[in-house]
């Protein structure tokens, strides 16, 4: 069930890959614009690179999350899916995992942009990959649920960020801290603590949102 739902969402994303390129361009443009807020101070830019990366990712995520449910709203596709003997929970997890994959790829694609623009590289690539995976997992779990909710409401472009941004403050804090530690060095060995916070958030929200999603789409 989960695999079928996941396959459907990944296929949808693959067929709409132009959208992904556009969202990447949005994220890269955001990274470029953030540097204008600081000015051409290369030291300051490097210091804030982690924060900029995650802000760009967060802003871009609202686009891709909203998009993922936009397609289900056309011609009552969601109602059709709910009639399948699969259960709403598997639909949720399929979509959340697909969104996670998309956001993680977006994050990985934005890293070179960050390195070039802010001179903020790291050699601990595996750790960086881990932080990106954990952070985007934290964004996609509640994001998918809220996107499913707001897609059916009026004023969805405003509502999704309004509900989503305050909620993911811990993800943003922990991911920014962890990324900055990787870029700027981690003399106190704090990386583990932030990664644990991300893991805790992920575990709580992947289970809680899966439980609640059925109630959101039922009627």
């Amino acid at each position: 069930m989960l695999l079928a739902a996941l396959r459907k969402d990944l296929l949808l994303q693959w067929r709409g890959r132009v959208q992904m390129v556009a969202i990447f361009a949005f994220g890269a443009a955001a990274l470029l614009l953030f540097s204008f807020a600081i000015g051409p101070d290369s030291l300051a830019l490097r210091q804030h690179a982690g924060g900029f990366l995650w802000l760009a990712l967060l802003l871009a995520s609202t686009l891709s999350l909203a998009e993922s449910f936009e397609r289900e709203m056309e011609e009552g596709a969601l109602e059709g899916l709910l009639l399948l003997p699969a259960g709403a929970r598997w639909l949720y997890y399929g979509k959340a995992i697909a969104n996670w994959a998309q956001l993680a790829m977006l994050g990985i694609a934005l890293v070179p942009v960050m390195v070039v623009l802010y001179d903020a590289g790291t050699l601990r690539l595996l750790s960086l990959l881990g932080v990106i995976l954990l952070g985007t997992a934290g964004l996609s779990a509640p994001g998918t649920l809220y996107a499913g909710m707001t897609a059916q409401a009026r004023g969805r472009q405003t509502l999704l960020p309004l509900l989503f941004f305050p909620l993911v403050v811990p993800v943003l804090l922990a991911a920014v801290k962890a990324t900055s530690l990787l870029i700027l060095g981690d003399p106190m060995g704090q990386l583990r603590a932030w990664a644990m916070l991300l893991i805790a958030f992920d575990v709580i929200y992947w289970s809680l949102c899966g439980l609640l999603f059925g109630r959101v789409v039922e009627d």
Partner: protein
Amino acid sequence: MTAPAQSRTPQALVALGVAFLLVGSYWGLAMAPAEIFMGDVQRIMYVHVPTAWNAMLALTFAFVCALFFLFTNAWKWDHRLEAAMEMGVVLSLLLCIQGAIWAKPTWGVWWDWDPRLTTTAVLVFAFGGILALRAFVDDPARRAVWSAVACIIAFVDVPIVYFSVKWWNSLHQAQSSPETVSKAFHWPLRINAFGILFLWTGLVALRTRLAALRVAGELAPPPERTQGGAR
């Protein structure tokens, strides 16, 4: 829908709350001694700390209402949820404003990224967003379920936000407990705490009635149209 005979308890609670607040505030402002280090600025504590307690209490009540709604599907919990959430947002917003007023003369800045302050600000936005969601959804059944779900998700977030910000940065003074607060400060603080408690429970009860009336109106079949169709 026949309106049941409405009790006057909420109005009485509001009146009692205002009376308590007047007594407590007069006590705190005029009779209690000034604090040694902070002087008269500290007197904002007599509203600030009770506001904090009651904001948390109102939001916890909203969370309980959301849980009960999801399990029982009874409308009355949705009405209470709406009222309690609005009250929680108002109290949290007041909390931020009072905190800023106190922080400027004490810390020299309006805002500080301390865990409790930041968490309260996040709370205002998280629950304010849910109120916006309620305003944007016309179908009362969906509105009720969605806001209950969003309320649970946001409430679970509160401790995580608190701890993440705490690790991130800390400056706020440690929580005061009855042991660290001089006896002279106790009474105005307690009286105001109960004053705000009575005030908000009364207002929430009144707001619950309003919410019930609105949903009853939304769920009722439009009478004109059925008659017009018959003719």
